[in-house]
């Protein structure tokens, strides 16, 4: 995804910050106390007076932060709250966090423009706007206290939600002056705290979302309960793009607890008194599907199509010198790498609760894109977006899946036929088979090597464009900036350079998947680096080092990983398999630098067990070092699932996988120790949700290469190709 914030967009967050004050003071909300001892932690509503789009303070001193980036496990509720609370001078224990409603003006991402959480951008996008919002609210509170006491605001101090006048010893709680303060004109250009005085930013403070999660109290979208709510489940045409033919509802309607069958042109849904009744009803529904035009869609053809596309002319992404001319002769190396379709498979499957009534629509869901959700439902129902209310929730995982609103649109279409609120829950099989998948990628690399280093470089990335569908204005000049992220600019000095992109669309719509474009770019580049190093009989790290003299941060993480993992020593023996290997990979994407070293053991049957992963990371300034570690650990596990097991394949227009038995994700007994080493850095903060996923895949593939002598070029690892021939 694109990372450089467009200066023209900075106004968005500035506007959000400076609005507020008198016009938006939440008079209606004053005095509403938080419900005591809630049995269910439904999404909170801000209480008290509004200082700006992000901060409310109530008379009882409760501070509500309305957070623009959604919490899907990555810890941004906490990291965003750290930024606000640091400048506001309140304790995190006083803070109530709430998701922002759809409101592009206030909560549109300074990076994406649209209101979206993704691309490892939250820290880059929101740290400064949130710090400013907290500091501005604090300045207004100080101003109110200074007016009350008739003293200069400059002489007052704040700590833990209390304003003190050191001269007189008087103090006022924030709640006591909140109403007055929120009515004042927000000051412009308020001064931010000096980092030497940080008590929250940069500290491994505890997360604010986990206490409720540990006791089963958190309400995810799937846990929503509305008065008189019904439950539904559905089936979409199993063949991509197929339609519903004749339907016999009689048996389904005879299932106890089934209330209704909804038949739309592309799907059927059964509504009942509980999810189980709806599922039984769906299983009893006799549907004749009309497969449509994709009944002949097969995986081998999809692979062949993208390979053929990769032979065409590409759009130039990066051009330095004349690489094609220099790649006509000399010592040349060439290879191609292919990555499969992948499902996100968050543990909370697609679900959505909808109530359509009186020309309006109310939705309860967990989404990364509240604005898209609102617009999508409005369009599906033919009503004004203002008539659609989105109640967002903590997300049970997302990984890009909830950047899409296909499920919300389907739920709205079903709910339009149902009296009263209805919670629609996908089965796991339906969730996996009707996903929007990470697309296929085909990367073709060709280089010239002279005196032990690369002197000409040609990288051609072929794949579908997610941007062209998801954020059309970002798709310019035929280049998908996400698809070539990690390829357009590389840390290595490789002489003449040509990077091209070929857009290859199939009938399968592509979607962002944790790690996004760099997953394929970095996998291909780092696999290729090992191939060339081995073919020229050079140590893979020594080979890379020779081309990193102009990128000290890249060299830094390379050396840190090498030192911590003991590069140069053999991978330890493992009972899992006699062949063992150690593999390396390096990346710069999402504004972060990472290096990884993976150890593997390979059985005679070709099964691979990863026995250790060491990651070195330079991610710039850090908001919460413990969340940083958790994100890298989790990202590595996500990447291990992909490289070892992950693939979605099509046969006869149908997805061949359906549940965790055949779409395998890593289990704890396959999980190696994961060591993470952070390089101290004063550089600008980079993103960290995705890099762990990106970096571990080529590291493992290179370790398998080292262990077996075979470089696998299509993922996931196919044991048959590395089984020991008897």
């Amino acid at each position: 995804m694109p990372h450089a914030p467009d200066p023209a967009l900075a106004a968005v967050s500035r506007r959000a910050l400076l609005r507020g004050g008198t016009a938006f003071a939440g008079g209606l909300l004053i005095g509403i106390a938080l419900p005591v001892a809630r049995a269910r932690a439904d999404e909170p509503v801000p209480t008290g007076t509004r200082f700006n789009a992000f901060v409310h303070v109530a008379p009882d001193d409760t501070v509500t932060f309305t957070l623009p980036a959604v919490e899907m496990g990555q810890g941004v509720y906490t990291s965003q709250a750290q930024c606000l609370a640091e400048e506001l001078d309140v304790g995190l224990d006083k803070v109530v966090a709430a998701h922002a409603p759809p409101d592009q003006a206030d909560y549109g991402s300074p990076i994406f423009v649209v209101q979206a959480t993704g691309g490892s951008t939250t820290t880059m996008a929101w740290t400064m706007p949130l710090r400013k919002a907290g500091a501005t609210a604090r300045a207004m509170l100080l101003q109110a206290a200074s007016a009350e006491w008739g003293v200069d605001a400059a002489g007052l101090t704040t700590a833990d939600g209390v304003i003190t006048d050191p001269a007189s010893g008087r103090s006022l709680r924030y709640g006591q002056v909140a109403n007055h303060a929120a009515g004042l004109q927000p000051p412009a250009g308020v001064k931010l705290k000096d980092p030497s005085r940080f008590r929250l930013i940069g500290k491994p403070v505890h997360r604010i979302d986990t206490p409720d999660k540990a006791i089963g109290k958190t309400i995810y979208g799937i846990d929503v309960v509305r008065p008189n709510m019904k439950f539904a489940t559905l089936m979409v045409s199993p063949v991509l793009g197929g339609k519903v033919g004749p339907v016999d509802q009689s048996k389904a309607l005879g299932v106890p607890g089934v209330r209704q069958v909804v038949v739309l042109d592309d799907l059927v849904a059964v509504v009942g008194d509980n999810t189980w009744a709806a599922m039984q009803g769906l299983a009893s529904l006799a549907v004749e599907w009309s497969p449509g035009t994709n009944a002949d869609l097969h995986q081998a053809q999809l692979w062949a199509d993208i390979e053929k596309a990769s032979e065409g002319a590409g759009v130039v992404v990066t051009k330095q010198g004349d690489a094609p001319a220099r790649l006509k002769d000399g010592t040349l190396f060439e290879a191609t790498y292919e990555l499969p379709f992948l499902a996100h498979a968050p543990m909370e499957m697609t679900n959505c609760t909808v109530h359509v009534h009186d020309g309006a629509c109310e939705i309860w869901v967990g989404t990364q894109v509240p604005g898209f959700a609102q617009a999508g439902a409005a369009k599906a129902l033919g009503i004004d977006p203002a008539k659609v209310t989105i109640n967002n929730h903590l997300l049970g995982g997302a990984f890009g899946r909830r950047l899409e609103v296909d499920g919300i649109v389907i739920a709205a279409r079903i709910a339009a036929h149902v009296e009263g609120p209805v919670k629609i829950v996908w089965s796991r099989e339906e969730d996996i088979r009707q996903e929007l998948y990470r697309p296929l990628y085909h990367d073709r690399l060709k280089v010239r090597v002279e005196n032990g280093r690369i002197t000409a470089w040609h990288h051609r990335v072929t794949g579908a464009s997610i941007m062209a569908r998801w954020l059309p204005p970002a798709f310019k000049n035929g280049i998908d900036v996400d698809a070539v992220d990690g390829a357009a600019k590389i840390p290595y000095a490789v002489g003449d350079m040509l990077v091209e992109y070929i857009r290859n669309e199939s009938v399968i719509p592509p979607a962002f998947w944790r790690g996004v474009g760099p997953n394929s770019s970095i996998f291909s580049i780092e696999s290729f680096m090992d191939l060339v190093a081995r073919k020229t009989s050079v140590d893979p790290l020594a080979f890379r080092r020779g081309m990193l003299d102009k990128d000290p941060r890249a060299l830094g993480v390379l050396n840190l990983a090498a030192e911590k993992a003991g590069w140069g020593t053999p991978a330890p023996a493992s009972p899992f398999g006699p062949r063992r290997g150690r593999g390396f990979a390096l990346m710069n994407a999402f504004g972060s630098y990472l290096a990884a070293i993976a150890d593997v053991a390979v059985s005679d049957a070709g099964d691979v067990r990863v026995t250790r992963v060491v990651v070195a990371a330079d991610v710039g300034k850090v908001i919460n070092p413990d969340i940083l570690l958790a994100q890298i650990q989790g990202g590595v596990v996500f990447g291990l699932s992909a490289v070892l097991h992950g693939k979605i394949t099509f046969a006869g227009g149908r997805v061949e996988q359906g549940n965790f038995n055949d779409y395998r994700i890593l289990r704890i007994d396959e999980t190696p120790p994961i060591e993470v080493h952070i390089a101290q850095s004063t550089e600008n903060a980079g993103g960290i949700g995705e890099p762990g996923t990106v970096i571990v895949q080529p590291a493992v593939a290179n370790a398998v290469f080292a262990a077996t002598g075979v470089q696998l070029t299509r993922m996931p690892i196919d044991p048959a190709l590395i089984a020991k021939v008897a």
Partner: protein
Amino acid sequence: MDLKINGTSRGTDVPDQMPLLWVLRDVFGMTGTKFGCGIAQCGACTVHLDGIAVRSCQLPVGAVGGRAITTIEGIGETPTGAKIQKAWLELEVIQCGYCQPGQIMSAAALLAANPHPDDAAIDAAMAGNLCRCGTYVRIREGIKHAART
């Protein structure tokens, strides 16, 4: 039928074949127990029957009988459940949290049966619980941390 859930008796007249998962979630509104796969592959629906971890998505409610059901909402009342929940927060095991009720239920059952499990015992007991956020490294640490307290 009468069910004993977290020490409280609750009556319901649902069909015997309905999995306990849906009785808890949809009939009683106890949504802490999660639906993850429906085929006992992910462990998100794990509850205890007389202290033994079971997958409630595959357990017909009619098979429960008089056995005591414990869910994530009640596990904090048991010594091992409380230890696990505390360790989970101290080590910040949790990310999205959706699978964690199941993880905590499996971990609490493990610790009750084996007060000092090693990595192999942890892996064996926890291999039926999937986590897509990838919290496994901290789950191992969390169980050992709880065992020390």
